[in-house]
């Protein structure tokens, strides 16, 4: 469903993403992990068609994003990590607008919008301007907007940031059910527990290069012996030893 071939992004002499090859098949919930600045967001924004790759290609549902961006984006929903939306629209107007961007309108969109707002406890805020929403509420609205046009693929950057425990739980259930129905989700996260319990497969990226990719068992095998949890695997693979000079830093 998502195919990346030698995907590269360079900013001047700095290579943010370096020849990434990845396949995420239909019905899979794929996790994308990595330390800060590893290239996760850049990769996801290239898949969403916001950034242009320096080289390499992205295919969504067998459509080349560079060759036919409109058709490829029609299949896609994107949830960014920073919830910037139109402050002067109400929640329901925003959902209607996003559906409109995908060419959808009418009773079906209204119904789906209502259901999504209810799912995330935003129903009583539906007619409030977004400027009065909290950070978490904006995040919930953006998540709802990514589902409103029923995309085949959803790309999510840090979905849990700012969500309350109930919304986080709802989102996890929604993701699971969505993939069970044959849709595909690719998400980046720093919450390793979420990735471990939710994702079918996980890739770990560091300095723009994929260090490991596979199921939890595959990852355990690629890390050295003696590790079991995703946190240990992550730290071992990314070489980020636990603050070894902790005491020295605190004493300084």
């Amino acid at each position: 469903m998502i195919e990346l071939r030698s995907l590269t992004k360079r900013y001047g002499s700095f290579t943010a993403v370096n020849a990434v090859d990845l396949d995420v098949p239909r019905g899979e919930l794929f996790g994308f992990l990595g330390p800060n600045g590893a290239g996760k967001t850049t990769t996801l924004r290239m898949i969403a068609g916001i950034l242009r790759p320096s080289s390499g290609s992205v295919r969504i549902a067998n459509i080349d994003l560079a060759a036919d961006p409109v058709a490829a984006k029609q299949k896609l929903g994107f949830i960014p990590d920073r919830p910037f939306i139109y402050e002067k629209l109400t929640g329901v107007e925003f959902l209607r607008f996003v559906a409109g961007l995908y060419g959808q309108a009418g009773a079906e969109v209204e119904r789906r919008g209502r259901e999504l707002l209810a799912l995330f406890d935003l129903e009583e805020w539906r007619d409030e301007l977004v400027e009065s929403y909290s950070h978490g509420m904006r995040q919930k609205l953006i998540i709802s907007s990514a589902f409103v046009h029923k995309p085949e693929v959803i790309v999510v950057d840090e979905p849990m940031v700012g969500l309350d425990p109930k919304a986080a739980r709802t989102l996890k259930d929604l993701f699971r059910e969505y993939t069970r129905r044959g849709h595909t989700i690719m998400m980046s996260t720093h919450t390793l527990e979420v990735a471990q319990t939710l994702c079918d497969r996980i890739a770990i990226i560091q300095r723009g290069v994929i260090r490991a990719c596979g199921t939890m068992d595959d990852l355990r095998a690629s890390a050295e012996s003696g590790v079991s949890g995703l946190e240990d695997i992550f730290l071992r693979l990314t070489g980020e030893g636990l603050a070894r000079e902790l005491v020295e830093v605190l004493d300084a």
Partner: protein
Amino acid sequence: MLDELRTLLAPKWLTARARARKKERGRAARTAILLTVGAIFWAFAFGLLHRLLAYFRGVPEIGPLLAGKLLGLILVSFFSILLLSNIITALSSFFLARDLDLLASAPVDWLSLYTAKLLETCVNSSWMVVLMAVPMLTAYGTVYDGGPAFIALALLTFLPFLIVPAALGSALTLVLVNAFPARRTRDILSVIAVLAAAGLVVLFRLVRPEKLARPEGFRSLVEFISILRTPTSPLLPSEWLSRSIMGWLTGSLDLLPLYLLWSTAAAAVAIGALLHRWLYARGFTKAQESGERWAREGWTGRTARWMLTPLGVVRRELVLKEIRVFFRDTTQWSQLILLAVLVVVYVFNIKFLPLTGEGITFFIVNLVPFLNLALAGFVLASVAARFVFPGVSLEGRTWWLLRASPLSVRELLWSKFWVGTLPLLVLALAIVGVTNSLLHVSPFMFAVSVFTITLMTFALAGMAIGFGTVFPRFETENAAQIPTSFGGLLYMMSAVGIIGAVIVLEARPVYSYLSAVSFGGGESPPLIELVLGFGLAAAVCLTATFWPIRIAQARLEALER
């Protein structure tokens, strides 16, 4: 306290320095254009004022009085601009700025915070007035031989003149924020500011300043002189500044106005600081609240939705979004008030043109509406700069959404073009229609006006979209600031160029027609002249419509945010 103040101001200074050092493509060219435009403006303002003052100086008795009156008028407008601008800037710097959370949680002394924010407010709202004051004061200094000491006097008197409105404006904002939530205060202030500006324009027009230049309209010279001698506003700092400067220049320096200026500045800052101590914490807490605002689609919304159905879902939703966002943002729609006032003043001026009586021929009556096209074009360009130019910049923060959706950039730009152009066209046709009817022009000139202004509107809107995309201001929080950017300036310059080109191209056939009717017994101009003149003007306008949008499209498609 000084160390703390230095620390508080360091980020502003460092940011400005980093921005100045940033290496960007085309930066040198931009700076060169800015400097050239600035130099032309300075030279123009200086030259004009110098000529006028030199003339005044030659007139005994009344000369210095007229010079003082003029200075008083300029300074009173400076003072009103400063006060308004400080009120609005203080709201951002004291209550809405992003660094306030950090500062409010740090152990910073209240007086240091007040001083730092006051300085920030003062600098941000006064730099433009200072730039305008330089050629003015230079002209006064050179015409009246102020000597090198005049520079010191100008600095010594101008500084408190800037401090007073900053302290007063900040105090007023502080009181307002304590009465309303900050975001609501911003809305109220935008409307107040626009109404005040509109009031100034109307007042200035109704006063008919041209009367002062015609002393024969007064009953006697004594009455004229006594009017000139009366201070415009004896309690305003602008009057004290004017008296200090004119006193020095005419050799009768009076120290009282200088004392008044400095003591008022000191008192304003002290009172401002006390108010800050009592009210700031409460106001800052209140500023975090946002006014509860809701909107539900009523019958107007449903009608608009129904009427826009033929556009298709994507365009309809884009257009609806544009309209909603515009009318819910007070900083944007409130500018319509100013626009309405400008149009009224414009029509008022045309109505009172002395176009009847002896010596006023058919030729002149019909030439005026043709030249009027240039003026109407300029009004339209300013309106497009306010409302169409910022369109793409305002999408900056939501660019991720539009870019990730299947919406094509072309579709987005043309939607913005039509949403901006249609109201602009209605305005253009109304201005031209009303003024032409007032002037009783011939049917031929009426047709020329409608044809030209329609094409010009398309060109001006297309250019506004193009320039607004190529020189975007994605990070700004206030839409009203976008047109005053570098790109906005370039847009206005290019718009004037296009208007000029169209007028020049059409001048020949229009001249031939008017001469033929006036002097040649009703023969129409040669067909080739008509086709060439109007055809070329149309070609220029259409190129100016499509070409900038095409460049904007390429630019946006390559944009990575």
